């Protein structure tokens, strides 16, 4: 085992372990905080894989934005802060069986398929400069389409979550009250 493999294995154990805590803990807020740890360990894994710009984007968007959004959702649905016993559904054992089968199949396929493959890691392969040049030269059209999709989804989220739009009101009368 090389040093990279040892570091990546440790980060992977942290990521998978905190992922298991996310899906098994009895406290909603703790699940969100374990999710932060899992995403942070994955960002470290991206750094080991020399994808440093992806790692920073992971930290900024996932740890910074998505988890905060999920915490807002937990607060706004007035979830209990302490232990709640009914977070797991009754088909937990069927779900565990399906997950174990998925893990067995995927791990077997991955190990059998890539047993002898090694990947060349060279520094600078995922720097902001290279990725920026790649995004704005080759992938600029998907980038622009994605910006339109983000705008549409955020407008949709605003329309879904604002009150005062009802069938009883005429068109244009609900613009002042947000």
């Amino acid at each position, binding site marked *: 085992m090389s040093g990279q493999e040892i570091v*990546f294995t440790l980060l992977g154990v942290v990521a998978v372990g905190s992922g298991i805590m996310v*899906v098994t803990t009895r406290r909603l807020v703790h699940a969100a905080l374990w999710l932060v740890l899992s995403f942070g360990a994955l960002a470290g894994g991206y750094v080991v894989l020399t994808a440093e710009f*992806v790692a920073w984007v992971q930290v900024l968007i996932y740890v910074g934005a*998505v988890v905060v959004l999920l915490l807002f959702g937990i607060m706004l649905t007035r979830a209990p802060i302490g232990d709640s016993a009914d977070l797991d559904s009754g088909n937990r054992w069927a779900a565990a069986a399906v997950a174990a089968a998925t893990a067995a199949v995927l791990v077997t396929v991955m190990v059998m398929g*890539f047993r002898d493959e090694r990947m060349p890691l060279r520094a600078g392969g995922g720097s902001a400069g290279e*990725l920026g040049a790649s995004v704005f030269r080759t992938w600029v059209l998907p980038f622009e389409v994605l910006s339109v999709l983000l705008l549409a989804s955020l407008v949709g989220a605003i329309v*879904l979550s604002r009150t005062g739009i009802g069938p009883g009101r005429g068109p244009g009368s609900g613009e002042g009250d947000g």
Partner: protein
Amino acid sequence: MHLAYPTVVAALLFSVGVYGVLARRNAILVLMSVELMLNAVNLNLVTFDMWFRDRLHGGQVLTLFTIVIAAAEVGLGLAIVLLVYRNREMVDVDRLRSLAESDDAAEAGEVGEVGEVEEAAP
């Protein structure tokens, strides 16, 4: 670096996400598990980008796109969850059975109750 390490981590993370989606009852926890599965896919994309030494960096750019789509998805998903909470005072996916196909008495009772709540809401 051996290719098996990141792919096995990604496979295990994906399975954890599958378990969370199937076993959790709170809709926000289901959204968290979906995020775990998306992260597993991102790890695979970065790994294979590094393995192929892609000159265009297709895997990493697609990872960035997936992160943006995940952010849009969680925003829209939370808006829907908040709307469900506003109408029904709970986000338990096991009890949200208005779209289920069975039409026995319990379901009819729940549908009537839900209509009542929706009428009372505005």
